[in-house]
């Protein structure tokens, strides 16, 4: 059942040529991508590089005869990175770039200490697994079948750790949902509020709404201010955005008198 084309790994301590080739091609790419996660500006690009690192790791697992683990790595982590992607869009905004403003004061030193501690923990764990413990070898690990072997470990020895991690992940997901879901059901400036505000102002000049743009029958585009009865342009009739961009033209040439003069 396990004799398939992915049978690269040999006995303990030796590396087959195809495995070495794929390692020297993929490992640098994975490391570059992992560094890229920290360096790139856009959060979405980080998420993508993360996905790439996860897929590369999955290929390593598959080459090491851990077929099930490799495939599950892709299924789980592509979904996870997709969630990360959505969280970025929901919490940070679509085009967000990293800002270097510290929101929490004095967090730098504790976080550096924590990071070094975590790194030391990981290194010591890996060291204990690779240096002191004798390796059983893949043949022994896959004796009952790759899937069956993992299932046995997961549901006996590591069941508690697994449950704890799942609780942690659910907490994180709920936390993100709470943070993303704002309590404001509607905007404070809904139509009703704006209407009330118009009547509360000192002048009732624009209580019925702002004047529409354009000079009637001559040019009704949004970039031409309307003319008031005295012939002066009404600045409130064009959008503030257009005005600040300098995209409006004067309405004088379209006034009735100006046209009549032209025709005369």
């Amino acid at each position, binding site marked *: 059942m396990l004799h*398939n084309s992915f049978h690269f790994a040999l006995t303990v301590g030796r590396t087959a040529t195809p495995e070495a080739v794929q390692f020297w091609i993929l490992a640098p790419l994975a490391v570059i991508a992992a560094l890229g996660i920290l360096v790139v500006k856009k959060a979405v690009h980080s998420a993508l590089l993360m996905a790439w690192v996860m897929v590369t790791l999955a290929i390593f697992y598959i080459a090491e005869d851990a077929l099930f683990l490799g495939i599950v790595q892709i299924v789980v982590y592509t979904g996870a990175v997709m969630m990360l992607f959505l969280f970025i869009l929901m919490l940070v905004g679509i085009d967000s770039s990293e800002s270097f403003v510290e929101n929490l004061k004095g967090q730098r030193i504790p976080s550096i200490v924590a990071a070094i501690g975590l790194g030391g923990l990981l290194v010591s764990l890996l060291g204990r697994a690779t240096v002191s413990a004798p390796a059983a070898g893949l043949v022994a690990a896959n004796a009952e079948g790759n899937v069956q072997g993992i299932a046995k470990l997961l549901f006996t020895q590591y069941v508690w750790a697994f449950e704890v991690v799942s609780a942690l992940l659910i907490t994180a997901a709920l936390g993100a949902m709470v943070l993303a879901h704002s309590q404001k059901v509607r905007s404070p400036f809904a139509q009703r509020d704006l209407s009330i505000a118009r009547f509360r102002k000192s002048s009732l000049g624009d209580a019925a709404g702002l004047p529409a743009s354009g000079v009637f029958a001559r040019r009704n585009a949004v970039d031409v201010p309307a003319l008031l009865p005295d012939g002066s342009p009404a600045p409130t009739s064009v959008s503030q955005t257009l005005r600040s961009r300098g995209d409006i033209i004067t309405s004088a040439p379209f006034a009735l008198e100006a046209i009549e003069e032209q025709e005369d």
Partner: protein
Amino acid sequence: MSTAALLGQDPGWLILVKGLLIFVFCVVCTLMAVWGERRIVARMQMRLGPNRVGKFGLLQALADGVKLALKEDLIPAAADKVVFIIAPIISATTCFMAFAVIPFTGTVTLFGHKTAMQLTDLPVSVLYILAIASIGVYGIVLAGWSSGSTYPLLGGLRSSAQVISYEVAMGLSLVAVFIYSGSMSTSEIVAAQHKWWFSVILFPSFVIYVISMVGETNRAPFDLAEAEGELVGGFHTEYSSLKFALFFLAEYVNIVAVSALATTLFMGGYHALPGLTFTEGWLGGWFTLFWFIAKVVSFFFLFVWLRGTLPRLRYDQFMKFGWKVLIPTSLVWILILATLRVMSQRAVSRIIVMGFSVGVVLLVVLITTMYDRTTAKAKAAAVLPDLPLPSFPIPALPGQLTVNHLTIDQTQVVTELENHNG
């Protein structure tokens, strides 16, 4: 000899030939599928469909493809350029990868080598297909995000939500197959269906799979990611020329891929229809390819039929259906199935198994009747006492139902109208 062992003996050039054959099969399938879909939908709408280019319009898709390739390739100024270009490539490459583990035929002789028409076989090949499918979605989501425009972004987000929810239902429907066949390898699942197809024994899983495969491929009535009435073109609004063609190709190859997976997992794979098993030896085993393609084509017809028949779901209905109907149903069904499986493995007496099955059926009937009763009561209480008598067509107020609403007893409305009109 098992299929996996047989495939392990393939020389390198044979693997390359098989890969090439699969690629050609997918591309030809896409061309035929586009033509077939347009013709079938046209027939359902009493039109003719494309019938000018080539015999019966068969070359229409090819002509359209050439036209697409010659169009101007635009990249919007607001787009994230790299991601914008990578997205269609991800879509179009991953869709082919699923075919690596699909068994097209049984044991056949190809260029003097005894082999099976299957590129490779993994002990976890069905999971592999799921993994590839979840990478494929990145194409759509990234296309939506990188376009730098609102409608594509909405389409991409819809697509990601859709795939996350329907992949859960799909995975759960596959669990039943794994439990029953005792394997996750496609060739072994096909072999396990030698006697009974899983679409018969695992009927609920089959139904859930078919529904979620339509959701996974973004096809009508679940094509919310590209709902042209709401989102212009959805995630591919900003795409043109070859990049758009790649998305188009990916969509149709994906349809063929999920149909092929449905055939493999539930319809006996390349095995002949019941009663026609003698045909499996014809042409040195190659005739099984005909059965495989025939089953895939019928699934494709189902896709087109759905598109021609059903209107698109509203987004909230779609999500509700996925999370509140499909996933709970699958979970309950897997519980029942696992219990039955353990019973049969431990050789529990037949009376207990029968008792359990009857109990489950009774429970389901009881719960559904009670649910129907309570909802019917609630509806009756909400609607009938102050039924508005419409004298002229006015839109209904919130909570009020119009006369042509299905839940109102039609005869009562008619009598009340007659009383009203004298």
